[in-house]
């Protein structure tokens, strides 16, 4: 199942790696929700844990966005077939994940 192209392989491994990180975080979220009833993102980690928390939250936003975009691109590629579209999907996923992380930056400093 490994894609033949280098860029496709990068996307393949990045999607899986981001998925594993998100699974670990989601598990922590579920445990926290069950034990303490606290909300999403470990209880506003980005706003209460300083620069490290903000970096963590932005990273998670970027990973989640990349993971979702990459999955959608995979779905599209299965229908469009040409392998070279891996490059476009990869670039778009990376760009969207970076944009999503930056778009969330102001909210971590209290700007609506």
């Amino acid at each position, binding site marked *: *199942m490994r894609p033949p192209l280098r860029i496709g392989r990068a996307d393949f491994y990045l999607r899986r790696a981001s998925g594993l990180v998100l699974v670990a975080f989601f598990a922590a979220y579920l445990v926290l929700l069950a034990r303490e009833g606290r909300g999403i993102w470990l209880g*506003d980690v980005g706003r209460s844990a300083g620069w490290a928390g903000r970096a963590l939250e932005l990273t998670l936003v970027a990973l989640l966005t990349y993971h979702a975009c990459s999955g959608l691109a995979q779905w599209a590629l299965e229908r469009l077939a040409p392998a070279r579209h891996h490059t476009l999907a990869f670039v778009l996923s990376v760009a969207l994940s970076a944009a999503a992380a930056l778009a969330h930056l102001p909210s971590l400093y209290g700007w609506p």
Partner: protein
Amino acid sequence: MRLAWAQRLSAIVFMAAFIVHVHWVDGASPASHHVTLLLAIVVSGVVHAATGLFVVVTDYEARPRFVRALAPFLAAAAGGAIVAAGPRVAATDASGPTPGHLPGAPCAACHEGTEGRHGSVSLEEHAAASVGCETCHDVVDGRRPLLARSWPIETSPCVQCHEDAWGGFMPSAPGAAASAGPAASVGEGVRPLGLGAAQLCAARVITAKEADAALSRLEPVTFDLRSSDRERFLDGKTRMRLGAVTYEGTLALELAWDDPTDDPGDRVDLMTLAEVDVPHFARLGCVDTCHLGDATPHRMSPGEAASLFVVDVARARELRVTEAGIAELSSAAGRASGTLTREPTGWRAKLTVPLPPARDPSGGVTLGVSVFDGLPKAHALRPAPISVRLDCAGP
């Protein structure tokens, strides 16, 4: 193939529910919205993670077909188990406070061990004011603290009794001037500001040594800290004297207040705020804006009374001054230092703190101050912010 579809469908449900929950549902939304979306997030997330992990581990073709056939059922069972073992929530009657800790209330059946306190919140006093569990929680199974209920400030049950807190950091709030009491007495370099807020001039000196001497020469601004506890604080108030100087990017403060008894837990809390109008306060109210930690015992060490857990005031900064030194409760640049010493009739705190980079519109610093007496704590606070000007000539 069905496994792939389960994975993809759950991903779409997860992302949709997640985005809606994060961006369009907040503490002021009906509890049913929270419950529906959280259930969708949990179930779809578990299904997606389980099927995804299955794909990663088996790479689709590495296991016999019957294992793949079982996977969606295993994922669904895992999700169901987590949901069943996790919190169960439901909306309760939101028409008004239901005193959960009054005699016969179901909450007390499982929460007798709270010994009358829920974090730093006194249950007896709140029950006496008809504020009970359901006032703040939409919990029905009584097992876990869930879904703190937001009250817009206009209808908040908090300000029915804590009208002083309404004025504490919200000078634009209606009634703040009336609740703030008399303005600070006017001393050298001090004049009253609108809405009852005190304005203090921090004289500028050159060195730390000069700062100590200048603080002893300055006539401090004097004001009352108000409390709803009329037993621990005589007539529900105590008198504070506050002086300030600046030097080399540092704000040096001397605070003295009356407290006839030397009790464990006596301390002063000082908060510097970049802005006195806190975003979202009107919509989310006291608890969701700042005081979520007041009723959360598990965040506190034994014997410690956390007075504030900053949720949404990203630039707020709080210092706690005890005999052990100064602790910063929220992130800030630089470190504070200082001492708390016992005097015959009260306490005196001397502290230095790096000038916060965030300033109010006049270029000064806004302070909130409260003092604590004993454990469990009783506190008195200045019912209006203190604006410290930083451009004053030395004494």
